């Protein structure tokens, strides 16, 4: 047999067998429901109908389904991410970059209209529920990790301008500026959030600005679970997991937490959730719209209402130590128009605690 023909047969055999294996895996692999790494539901097989076929929706949904359910999906996504960033030298993958061991999303550019929209929602809440009441109203903006990593290598918004814009748009709220109280190591390497055990001093500072003393003494418990944050899955890069810890003390141990969304009492820290889809959900029940923390050991009778995003879930337990009752409202899930049905504002401290990434994408606020 001619040498070149033999080589050609080898080519057909090797590529052909690989192709057949992949095709077989596509047909045989059972459909999954959820992608842990991407933290999202996977597309399921669409229902066939002539209408969906004629309109093209069946074809589109089927494409989404077979792409989502492709065998070795996580491995292939990791291949793509590593090839893209290490061979093709792309600076980011899906707008997530790695710097100093931290995975970070590019928050760029600054969306002034989004900031104005968020401020307008806050203003509506203020004018409707707070303006003529005996309440002290504060606001803290939590910079995302890029603030501490920002240099000219990656795209990042002008954080000084962003913070000035936010505080000036919400000038009816008393600012408690915390950007100088935080540093990069206060954040998880693989996740967007801050570490509760690293923000106790920031919590004490916020408490002090609101006239409340926090002991600052906690037992820190580190859970025996690898924590792959949201960026780890989105970037699909091979990264070491973070550790996840929480802070408690005698006062916090006695706190009673109530989840109004599900009408059930929940623990302040739910360790079982740390072993679930998103370990960060262990703080205050995860993504729930309305929760209260009753603190029987509180020295004062003051109450606190926090309007916040997911960052506040690890901050609020620390602040709760100084208040008899703390209410956490997440207006991403509970439309602000309905707040009056659940909370009566009278003689409270009110804190708006939002991260830059939520304020820059305020379409999520209702």
């Amino acid at each position, binding site marked *: 047999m001619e040498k070149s023909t033999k080589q050609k047969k080898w080519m057909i055999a090797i590529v052909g067998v690989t192709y057949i294996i992949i095709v077989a895996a596509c047909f045989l692999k059972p459909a999954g429901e959820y992608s842990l790494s991407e933290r999202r539901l996977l597309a399921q097989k669409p229902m066939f109908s002539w209408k969906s076929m004629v309109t093209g929706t069946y074809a589109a949904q089927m494409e989404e389904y077979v792409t989502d359910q492709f065998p070795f999906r996580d491995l292939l996504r990791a*291949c793509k991410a590593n090839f893209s960033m290490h061979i093709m030298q792309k600076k980011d993958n899906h707008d997530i970059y790695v710097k100093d061991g931290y995975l970070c999303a590019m928050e760029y550019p600054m969306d002034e209209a989004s900031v104005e929209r968020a401020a307008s929602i806050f203003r509506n809440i203020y004018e409707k529920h707070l303006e003529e009441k005996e309440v002290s109203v504060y606001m803290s903006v939590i910079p995302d990790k890029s603030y501490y990593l920002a240099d000219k290598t990656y795209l990042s918004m002008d954080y000084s301008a962003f913070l000035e814009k936010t505080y000036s748009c919400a000038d009816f709220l008393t600012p408690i500026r915390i950007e100088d109280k935080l540093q990069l190591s206060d954040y998880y390497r693989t996740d967007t959030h801050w570490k509760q055990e690293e923000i106790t001093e920031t919590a004490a500072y916020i408490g002090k600005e609101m006239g409340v003393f926090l002991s600052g003494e906690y037992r820190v418990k580190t859970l025996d679970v690898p924590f792959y944050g949201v960026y780890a899955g989105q970037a699909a890069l091979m990264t070491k997991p973070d550790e996840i810890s929480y802070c408690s003390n005698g006062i916090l141990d006695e706190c009673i937490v109530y989840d109004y969304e599900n009408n059930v009492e929940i623990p302040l820290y739910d360790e079982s959730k740390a072993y679930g889809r998103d370990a960060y959900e262990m703080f205050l029940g995860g993504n729930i719209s309305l929760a209260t923390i009753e603190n029987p050991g509180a020295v004062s009778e003051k109450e606190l209402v926090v309007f916040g995003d997911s960052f506040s879930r690890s901050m609020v337990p620390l602040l709760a130590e100084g208040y008899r009752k703390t209410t956490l409202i997440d207006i991403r899930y509970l439309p602000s128009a309905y707040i009056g049905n659940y909370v009566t504002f009278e003689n409270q401290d009110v804190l708006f605690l939002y991260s830059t990434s939520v304020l820059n994408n305020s379409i999520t606020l209702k």
Partner: protein
Amino acid sequence: MVFSSIPFLYYFLPCVLLAYFLMPAKGRNGVLLVASLAFYAWGEPVYILLMLFSILVGYVSGILLEQSMERKWKAITPKAVLSGSIVIFTGLFIYFKYTDFFIRSFNAVTGTEIPLLHIVLPIGISFYTFQIISYLVDIYRRETKAQRNIISLATYIAMFPQLIAGPIVRYTDISGQLENRKSTVAMLESGICRFIIGLSKKVLLANELGALCEIFRASGDKSVLYYWMYAAAFTLHIYFDFSGYSDMAIGLGRILGFSFPENFNYPYISGSITEFWRRWHMSLGTWFRDYLYIPLGGNRVSQVKWIRNIFIVWMFTGLWHGASWNFVLWGLFFGVILMIEKRWLLKILDKTKVIKHLYVIFLLLISFIIFNASNMKEAWLDIRCMFGMGGIPVVSGEALYYLKSYGVTFLVSMIGCLPVAKKFAGRWQILKIAGVLLLLILSTAYLVDGSFNPFLYFRF
């Protein structure tokens, strides 16, 4: 359905190949036809009727034409049959592709507000209409016989490998293969390689460069540098996208036992625009030459008529690519340059070594800026901004970031425009096998990751 998608690669294609190779040779056209209709119906089930109508009219017209040429009926002349069928096909083509364009233009000129019809363009109509017309004209010219087997003709017209993005395969190119073809080891091997290389050109390079173009369009931090990057990215993007699709079509054809004509021959190494059009979308260029330019008289006419012929051909070349005035301008831009080159410039360019290439690249960058603009206003703004007349800075932070981020992609793409990789791959068979396998896996990984994967040919 597009080739660069998981449903095509890992569901449709293996089923078709299995059925095709299990079927005895006699039934293979049937398998190919059913597969092609299913392929077409997957994305556009409504227009399958238009496709079947076109096949039927093409089939009947071909036979009628041949019989009229044999003088079976004195009342019907071959010219009348040909003219009638061309009117039907161009009529359909113009209705689906240009009606809204005409209404929009009429409204703009007269100030009327005639509502648009919002007709959805049937995918591939620009390709299969031209194929049917070439089939009928070739019968008229006695270059081929009418196909009596409707399955064979339908297979030629609807054949999925070249249905949606070319190359424009003429009936005379594959009429013999429609009746009798063999899949040899050499064809199978080269078909597999060609298909995977085309897939990776589309997925790994074209899509990445296309994503950069999208980022540029959405940016609020534009600069002169960014405009030039965009022009370069789009120029490379359209080459790798289009030539990638052609490679996949040619590769699939070889796997199935067909030899489709080449469509691209390293166009960016050209030393003149004249040479560029001999290397770029060759099946379209030769189609317009043989079925429009030469029938108009070509260059064997007076100078005035020659200029007229050039303008007509290049206006239609532009319009073929899209129903918008910027495509007309794009075509005429090349028409003017080709005339200048033929009269004066080619002789001067031939004497240079580097300048001729810089000249070609410069003109292509400008031309593709016009091509990719959504309207004439945007094209003009883009060109002004490229030359610093848009009131924007020379450099912006975003431009620098993406220049660094896409630097290797640009470099690899530029090398991919040269014939060096082809020469290299031919020498090392083991590396070739590993390379092809790696490209298949990487392309799959990019598709699974849900990366940017546009389909340019909806407007063609």
